[in-house]
């Protein structure tokens, strides 16, 4: 059964390599996008931390900034 599934009448190499390439591409794209997201978010938090109290208060008024700082978003 397992051998049959792997071999697929001699087409196994083609079928499995096509599916593996697809899933590997998905994993790579997901990882790269996630790294970019985390990098930008950390940059934002670091920059926000450097603001003085008044500027931080102004920045806090924006919904997106509140959302980024709350950390409720998760990917």
């Amino acid at each position: 059964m397992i051998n049959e599934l792997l071999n697929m009448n001699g087409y196994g190499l083609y079928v499995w390599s096509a599916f593996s390439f697809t899933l590997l591409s998905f994993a790579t794209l997901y990882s790269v996008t996630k790294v970019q997201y985390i990098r930008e978010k950390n940059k934002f938090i670091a920059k926000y931390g450097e603001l003085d109290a008044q500027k931080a208060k102004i920045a806090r008024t924006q919904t997106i900034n509140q959302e980024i700082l709350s950390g409720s978003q998760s990917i």
Partner: protein
Amino acid sequence: MFKIFEPNKIFLITSKAPKYVMALFIAVISIGLIEALILSPEDYKQSHSVRIMYVHVPAAWISLGIFSSITLLSLSGYIFKNKNFFLIAKSLAPSGLVFNIIALVTGSIWGKPTWGTWWAWDARITSMLILAIFYLLYLIAWRIYEDKEKVLKITTLITIFGIINIPIIKYSVDWWNTLHQPASINIMSKSAIHSSMLLPLMIMTAAFALFSLLIFLMKYNTELIKLKNKGLDRL
């Protein structure tokens, strides 16, 4: 007009949605893989190599759909003077390119046992390769141009030229004598594909669509945070 497309409102949804989309994607792709690799029948002519269709065809469909959406969004951005449309278009492009590459590579793998060659300068394959070049040009333009107005103009021009290629891809199998078979699935008439093969194809298409949605949401959130980083600099 288009108040719903305001980043402040969208971010409340897009920031929370990825985890749900991810869960749904894992569920759908798991069912799709079982259907495509185990449950679906082999083809009487192509035997098990037909299973490559379940990754090749959805990838090609979605890459075409994403490029068409990017063009529509870029043009809408100009018509309605809404820069958020450009941001949405930019966030869609990476998954479009990856799906295009998947379609080319899996097509090449499928070509070897079916046609006896990894590559042929066939009308469908060549026009898909041209689409990949347009995706690359679009993404490179966003990277190299600093001037905001210039980049919006150049990326829109790239999509306008690129969209001409979409009907060529679609009808290449009818217009030229190619190695590719004509379309087996037709919305307007009865499909030439059996339901036992159509079901896994549709499930895999849904899974791929969910994955592109997931990447879009993550990329869009990243772009919004990038904008907010610039906003903090200006405070």
